[in-house]
C-alpha cells in the first residue's frame, strides 16, 4: 500500500533558528500516529508545515499531491482557539461556518459522534475546555477528512475528559477509517491509543510502531535522564 503522507528532508527555520532539521518519514493509511517530543522540539511546526501553514524546505506529498490540492480531505484541530470565546456564537453556528451548504453536510452527525449533540444551541464561551475541544473536533470532522491532524488537542482537558477524548479519536479511526496524526504530551495515552510514533527533537529521534519505537532510551533522549517507560498492562 503506498504511503498517504511522504515527508522528505523537511527543514523549517524561523529567523535563523532551526525548528526542524532534515526530517523524513512516511505514513500509511488508517493508522493513529502520535508525534511526541519536548517543548520546542518542532512538533507543532511539523504539523503546520505539512498543512502548508509555515514555509519550509524539503518535500511533502499528501496522497501523492500537494497540500493545496487535497485540503478538503484534511481536518485540523489546533492547539488552542485563537478567538475571543466570549463572542456570541453558538456551537451550531460555528460548525456551519465551514460549509457553504450546511444542510448537505452531517452537522448533527459529527456533533453526535463527538458527544456534543445536546450542546448545539450553547454559546462557545459557555463550554468547558474539554467540550470546546470536542466542538473543534466536530468542526474538523465535518467534511469527513481522510486525515485528521490534532495539535495538542487535549490541552485544557481534565484527566477524566482526557481518556474520553482519546477514546473518541480511537473510535473515529476504527469506525470511519480516518487516519489520525496527533501531537501529544500524554505519553501514557500515546502508548495506549497510537499505532505508530514519531519522536522529534528538531530532528527525527525515532519512528515506527509505537510499542517497539517508544523505548526508555528514546524517552531519555527526548526528555532527559529522569524520563523512563513503565508499562502497566494497558489493553
Amino acid at each position, binding site marked *: 500500500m503506498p504511503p498517504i503522507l511522504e515527508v522528505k528532508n523537511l527543514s523549517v527555520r524561523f529567523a535563523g533558528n532551526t525548528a526542524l532539521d532534515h526530517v523524513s518519514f512516511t505514513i500509511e493509511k488508517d493508522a493513529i500516529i502520535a508525534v511526541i517530543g519536548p517543548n520546542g522540539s518542532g512538533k507543532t511546526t511539523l504539523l503546520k508545515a505539512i*498543512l*502548508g*501553514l509555515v514555509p519550509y524546505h524539503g518535500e511533502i506529498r499528501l496522497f501523492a499531491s500537494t497540500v493545496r490540492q487535497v*485540503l*478538503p480531505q*484534511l*481536518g*485540523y484541530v*489546533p492547539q488552542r*482557539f*485563537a*478567538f*475571543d470565546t466570549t*463572542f*456570541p*456564537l*453558538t456551537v451550531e*453556528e*460555528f460548525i*456551519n*461556518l*465551514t460549509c*457553504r451548504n450546511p444542510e448537505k453536510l452531517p452537522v448533527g452527525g459529527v456533533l453526535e459522534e463527538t458527544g456534543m449533540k445536546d450542546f448545539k444551541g450553547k*454559546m462557545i464561551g459557555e463550554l468547558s475546555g474539554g467540550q470546546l475541544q470536542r466542538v473543534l473536533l466536530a*468542526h474538523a470532522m465535518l467534511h469527513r477528512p481522510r486525515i485528521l491532524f490534532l495539535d495538542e488537542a487535549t490541552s485544557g482537558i481534565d484527566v477524566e475528559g482526557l481518556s474520553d477524548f482519546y477514546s473518541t479519536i480511537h473510535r473515529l479511526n476504527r469506525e470511519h477509517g480516518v487516519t489520525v496524526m496527533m501531537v501529544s504530551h500524554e505519553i501514557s495515552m500515546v502508548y495506549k491509543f497510537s499505532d505508530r510514533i514519531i519522536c522529534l527533537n528538531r530532528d527525527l529521534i525515532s519512528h515506527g510502531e509505537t510499542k517497539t519505537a517508544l523505548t526508555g532510551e528514546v524517552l531519555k533522549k527526548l526528555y532527559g535522564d529522569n524520563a523512563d517507560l513503565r508499562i502497566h498492562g494497558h489493553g
Partner: protein
Amino acid sequence: MAELLQLPFMQRALIAGLVLGLLLAYLGIFVTLRRMAFFSDGVAHAALAGAAIGILTRFNPLVSALIFSMLLACLIYWLEKKSSLSSDAIIGILFTSGMALGIVLISLRKGYQPELIGYLFGNILAIRRQDLALIVILAFLIVAFIIRNKRKLTLLALDREMAYMAGINPDFYQLLLYVMLACALVLGIRILGIILVSAILIVPVSTARLFSRSFKALTLWTGVIAEGVMIGGLLLSYYLNLPSGAVIVLVGSTVFMLAFAASILCRTQH
C-alpha cells in the same frame, strides 16, 4: 416631524445616516472580533491628509480621502506582511504621519477652513447630492460583498488557520477587509468626522454583545441599534441645534451605558 422630513438636506442626512450606520455597524462586527479598533481609528485620522489634498487641489475631498485611505490600508497590509514590526507600531507610525501631513497641507492655505472643520467633526446636514450618491453606491457594493462572503469573513476573523483549512485565501480576504473598512470609514467621516467615526463602528456591536446569545442575534441587534442611534441622534441634534456627529455618538454611548447597566442588573438577579 413631517415638515422636517420634507427638507431636502434632512432627507439626504437621513438616507446617508441610515446607509452608513448599517455599513459601519456590520463592519464593526469583524473589527471587534479581530480587535482592529486601532486600525480603524488610525485610518480615519490619516484620512485627513487625503481630504487636505482634495481641498488644496480643488478636487472632491471625499474622493481624494477615499483613494488616500484605501492606498494606506494596502500599505498597512503590505508592511504587516513584510516587516517584523507589530501591527500596532505600523498603524501608529502611519496614522500620526498621515495626520501630520494633513495639518501641514492645510496650513498652506490661508484663512479659516470650514470644510476642514467639517471633516474633523463631521456635518451630516451639509451632505451634497453627489456625496450621497457616492455613499449609497459604495455602501451598497460593500454590504453586498459582506452578505455574499459573510461566512468567509467571519471564519477569517475567528481564526486565520481555520479559514485557510476551509479553503479560504486568508491574505486576499484580509486585504479586502482592510480596503472596505478604509472606504467605509472615509464615507462615515462626512457624518461623524475623523475624530468620532470609529464610535459607530464599535458602539452598536459592543452594545449588542451585552445581550445577544447567538451570532444571528448579534447581527440583527447591531443593525437595529446602529439605525436607532443614527435616527435618534440626528433628530435630537436638529431639535437641540447641536453638532450632529457628536450628538449621534453621545446617543450611542448612552444606549451602551443603559444596556450595560441592565446586563449587570440581570446578572445579579440570576
